């Protein structure tokens, strides 16, 4: 047994249909405008997942590139200590959180985490500080040092 099919109701009135079409046009225009305003309209893959984001996210772009360079150099299981620009003892929590995801095969620790016993890498983003250890990678955005265990 099937339900009796109800009589089809009349379509939208022309004025109402026009209203709906205008809404679609406005929304589509806004989407296209949004796309045009946030980056070049090309099919070239972005450098990082933040390349065309908001200004705040775009500012993270160089850091993601630096971490990508580290990923290629660091051995799996290595310990990496992050230091922030201008300060060898601190980092930013944001940089630390981002590095956790970008260096999944390494153990990422904060600049102020525990005692510096050596046997670890030190990633100095935009921070060409001397004396952190032996430089093992020079990158336009920062340096990677190796501090051997005593």
């Amino acid at each position: 047994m099937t339900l009796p099919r109800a009589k089809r109701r009349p379509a939208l009135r022309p004025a109402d249909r026009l209203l709906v079409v205008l809404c679609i046009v406005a929304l589509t225009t806004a989407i296209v405008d949004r796309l045009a305003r946030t980056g070049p309209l090309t099919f070239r893959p972005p450098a990082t997942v933040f390349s065309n984001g908001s200004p705040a996210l775009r500012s993270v772009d160089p850091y993601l590139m630096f971490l990508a360079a580290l990923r290629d150099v660091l051995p799996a299981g290595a310990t990496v200590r992050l230091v922030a620009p201008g300060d060898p003892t601190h980092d930013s929590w944001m940089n630390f959180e981002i590095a956790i995801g970008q260096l999944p095969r390494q153990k990422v620790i904060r600049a102020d985490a525990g005692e510096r016993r050596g046997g670890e890498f030190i990633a100095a983003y935009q921070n060409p500080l001397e004396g952190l250890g032996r430089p093992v990678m020079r990158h336009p955005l920062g340096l990677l040092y190796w501090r051997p265990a005593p």
Partner: protein
Amino acid sequence: MTGLRFLLAIAGLHVAGWGLLTLLPAGLRAILPRFPATGLAGLLFVGGEMLAFSFLAISWTLPRLLALPTLVVCGGLLRRGGSREIPGPRSALLVIAAGIVALAAYGSWSARATSADFVLFWGAKGERFALARGIAVPFLKAPEHYLMHPDYPPLLPFLYAFGSLAAGRFPWGASLLVMPWFLAMTVSVFHGVAEKRLDHPRESALLTAVFAGVLGLTGLVTCAAGSADAGLIAFETAALAVLLSTGGGPSEWIAGAAFAGACLLKLEGLFVSAIVISGVILVCRPGWRRRLVSAARLSLFPAIGLGSWLLFCRANGLIDFYRGGQIGAFTLKNASRIPPAILHAAAYDYAFLPWIALALTGFAFRQRGWAFLPLWTAGAFLSVNVYFYLHGTADPTIWIWWSAGRTLITVLTCGSLAIGGHGRESNFSDRAADDRERRGMR
């Protein structure tokens, strides 16, 4: 190549979901359009397996994860003769909605809409889960990883981990396409219910285009790519669409499964599920016995899904967010700051365009009326959000700017469903639904 393998894994979810759906009676199988039904079912299927394996301390490998879906798909192929497809009227105007989804996909792929949370924890968790071949409990428990919310619902990290296992590593760029994948499924679900309820191909296609525009714009502006918001909206839409399409009955099991997906994707899924279920029970269903039956059908799968996850968290010392208390005590001290902050977030960069477009569309469809259940859900969910913002003594403005834009997409979705989900028959309390339930969905 890594990205392609990741996307193929997602396509594989549709195959697994198809197999799972063949186990259902034909009437239940055809409630939702095939594309979203198979995708969402496949995600729940594989996600459920991953959670079960974690309970049993079985490490995730692709062959293990694919063994059961393969069996189910083979069984489905043998039963294929019994499947039933319901051909529905189609309109060429659907190409507009498809074009809007394509624009949103371009925006996601080109890193214009990447969520900060994607890099901070959603993607990182998925990647670590894949490397650990299971839920990386020591990683989640580490005090320095506290901001990753150890007990936050796991389904999106599961999806990323599954894709990573197939791809060999986590493809950060390709995984941004998960957002338009969810968006396409949501729009397809919406079109399915609008077509059924409005019973007019051109009108439902136009309404679907408006809905796609609203979701596409808000998704881009709120930077939803990579986060769980798009998935949450997909499962919420599916659950409401099932209830609106059929008016209840055994299909409530399907809606319950969709609620389970919502609860396992984001915390907000729990509130939306509770609100919809309470709406069905308190308002829409006549008779206490039927209300209790509805409550059981709608609640069972979310209770099993979320309950299992919380049990796992409890057993492994991961409970944090669900303990509550992080947002401070209730106070009206900041009440005056909430409306302007919400309005700021809701403007979506284009002078409230999504809201205006939805209101005008609702006005255009006024002769057909609006479905009650989505309106109830929208109102109650907004109230729940305001209630949470009324906690803590600190100025909530930044918190609201950060979160309200995304949570209000649920309200916009419900508003769209209120327009598209009302049509030939009234919902739930009508005789047609009662008859249908008695006959077991025909």
